[in-house]
């Protein structure tokens, strides 16, 4: 086990004003500043994880994907992927088999990597009904390895089986601003984040159209761009321009706003993807601080 250079730890404990019934705390744990060779991370856009403490980082500026197992504030290096098929890695998801899916913003494609880090191919939906045009803005993978693609060209969320075969789709609502991200709960509810309206929309399993779950969140978030959820259904929204994490309960009510804009550890500058494990470890791609920050969410 090797320690990554520049790992800094502290014992900051950040509590947010409580808006709902549950009190949450985010305790800063540590940060990842550089890769195995000591190269500084550069504007990481993605931080994916699973419940086996696997952390997958999209080190966007360096055009690489890094894998670690995180335990006791240390990072065990598991591998690096730098391939021509993936030039600008962004959002990252890991499925139950350990396959890694990475969104490439330059190619506007989703790259599938084997658990060992080999290029498997691009996610290409098959059997999708009309309209045939689809353009991914983001994606998610559920606990059955199904793939959810936020399709901004045809205004829907495409649901595909692990092989990419069309299963169903969830239509956009009539009134919306611009959807930037999608995630799916353990129970199969699709959650989509409308950045412009600052609002979360949802569609339970077998519901065909997204509907507002939360009220507009402009009081709490400036420009939310990323959404994730934990196994209990807690929803975490990354407010990019506000440098904060807004937490909602499964019903869409605000539980609190955490962290804030800044350079110090425990603060964020234009954060991107966040990922939370079953045990409450929260990884945040702190993009403009060029680091991955790790917190423990205490409920």
């Amino acid at each position: 086990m090797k320690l990554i250079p520049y790992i800094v730890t502290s014992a900051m404990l950040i509590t947010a004003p409580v808006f709902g019934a549950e009190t949450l705390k985010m305790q800063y744990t540590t940060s990842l500043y550089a890769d195995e060779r000591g190269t500084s991370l550069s504007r990481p856009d993605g931080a994916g994880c699973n419940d086996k403490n696997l952390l997958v980082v999209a080190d966007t500026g360096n055009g690489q994907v890094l894998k670690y197992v995180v335990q006791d504030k240390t990072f065990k290096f598991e591998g690096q992927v730098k391939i021509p098929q993936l030039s600008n890695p962004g959002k990252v998801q890991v499925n139950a088999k350990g396959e890694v899916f990475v969104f490439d913003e330059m190619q506007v494609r989703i790259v599938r990597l084997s658990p060992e880090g080999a290029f498997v191919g691009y996610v290409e939906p098959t059997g999708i009904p009309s309209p045939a045009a689809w353009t991914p803005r983001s994606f998610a993978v559920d606990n059955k390895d199904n793939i959810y693609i936020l399709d901004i060209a045809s205004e829907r969320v495409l649901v595909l089986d692990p092989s990419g075969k069309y299963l169903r789709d969830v239509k956009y609502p009539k009134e919306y601003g611009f959807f930037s991200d999608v995630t799916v709960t353990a129970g199969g509810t699709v959650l989509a984040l409308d950045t412009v309206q600052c609002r979360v929309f949802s569609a339970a399993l077998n519901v065909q159209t997204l509907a507002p779950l939360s009220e507009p969140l402009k009081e709490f978030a400036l420009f939310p761009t990323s959404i994730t959820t934990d196994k209990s259904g807690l929803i975490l929204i990354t407010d990019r321009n506000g440098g904060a994490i807004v937490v909602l309960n499964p019903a869409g009510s605000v539980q609190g706003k955490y962290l804030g804009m800044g350079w110090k550890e425990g603060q964020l500058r234009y954060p991107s993807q966040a990922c939370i494990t079953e045990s409450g470890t929260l990884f945040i791609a702190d993009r403009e601080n060029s680091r991955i920050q790790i917190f423990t969410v205490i409920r």
Partner: protein
Amino acid sequence: MFSGMVLCLLAAVTTATAQDKFKLKPNAKGKVCLSCHATFQEKLKSPFVHTPVKAGDCTACHNPHASSHGKLLAADSSQICVRCHSVVPAKAASVHSAIGKGKCTDCHDPHASNFKFVLRQGGNKLCFNCHSKMEESVSKARFKHAPVAKDCLDCHKAHASEKYKSLLKDVAPALCIKCHKPNTPLFAKQHMNYPVATSRCTTCHDVHGSDKAGMLYGNVHKPMAGKMCNQCHEEATSSTPFKTKKEGNDLCRACHSNMMNAMFLKNRIHWPVLSKKGCLSCHNPHASSETGLRRAPMNVLCGSCHEDTIDRQARSITKHQPVADAQCTACHKPHAADATFLLDQGLINLCGTCHDWQKHQTHPMGEKVRDRRNKNLTVLCLSCHSAHGTDYKNMLLAATISEMCTQCHTEYRR
């Protein structure tokens, strides 16, 4: 006639009320006032006199003894007129800003005038007192719209519009076809025989006048300027004449392929470009008053999604000139870029196009200078400033210079 009767009744009621309230002697509610305010004698000879004034009831609006409001008004200026005049529907789609501010007297003389409705001026002159930019553009326009030169109230309501934006009496094309008959051969020829009678005229036409023939907006999409509607749309004789020949961006790509190809070579894309609306998210495919066929000035257009960023500048003590000038593209690429925030180039070079940063306080900056707050960052302009403004002077990220500097130079912190 009915409204006249109502006004007389209202005047009688207010007169009786005032008389009761101030226990005035007969004829004291107005005639006494004129003994001092003698100049009003002449004013009252005007052809249009406000009803209470005509009834000699100054106390309908003024308190003869004392008031908390200017000109001894009996109520606040925003309230006094609406006590008798209800001119705004309960759920109006648009309300004249003067009314919203309680400034009825900007347009109306509360006593008497030479113009109907006791207006201060007649016709468009009155409107242009506030809408001076409109007056300028209307007067300069090579092709003028006759109603605009005559009376704004041909198309707009003066106080409020119950159903429509911009105080309009109706929306296009219903409003337009009251004068312009779409079934004439000339109309059909001018529109290349496309059945535009049900289309929104203001998509292409600047109704307040333009320098372009056909009163089109100042910037016209090349195929339209060449009357080649069928370059993008099906033929006019088709059963679906307005249907485009291709969907979304595929249509635009036919001509703008170089630009679109270059876009896909960049690391980061502006996502609305790839949405269902595609190019039309920001551009009007026919004509626009804005360059690049933008749908609106950049601060409005960009602000429709990036509201927080525009708001931040509005609140900022120091304004960043490109933002204040609504020139978002001075720094950002609107379609795609390699850098985050869709910036055109590296930050130092970008800021350096306007600011001579090398002479800036002699503080070392650049890719080789590490930010002491974070080992992964270098010292750039945005290390201390925020380009869209902050709550502090010079767009600094801290309230005072010392607070800013000691973020890094902690040894000097007191």
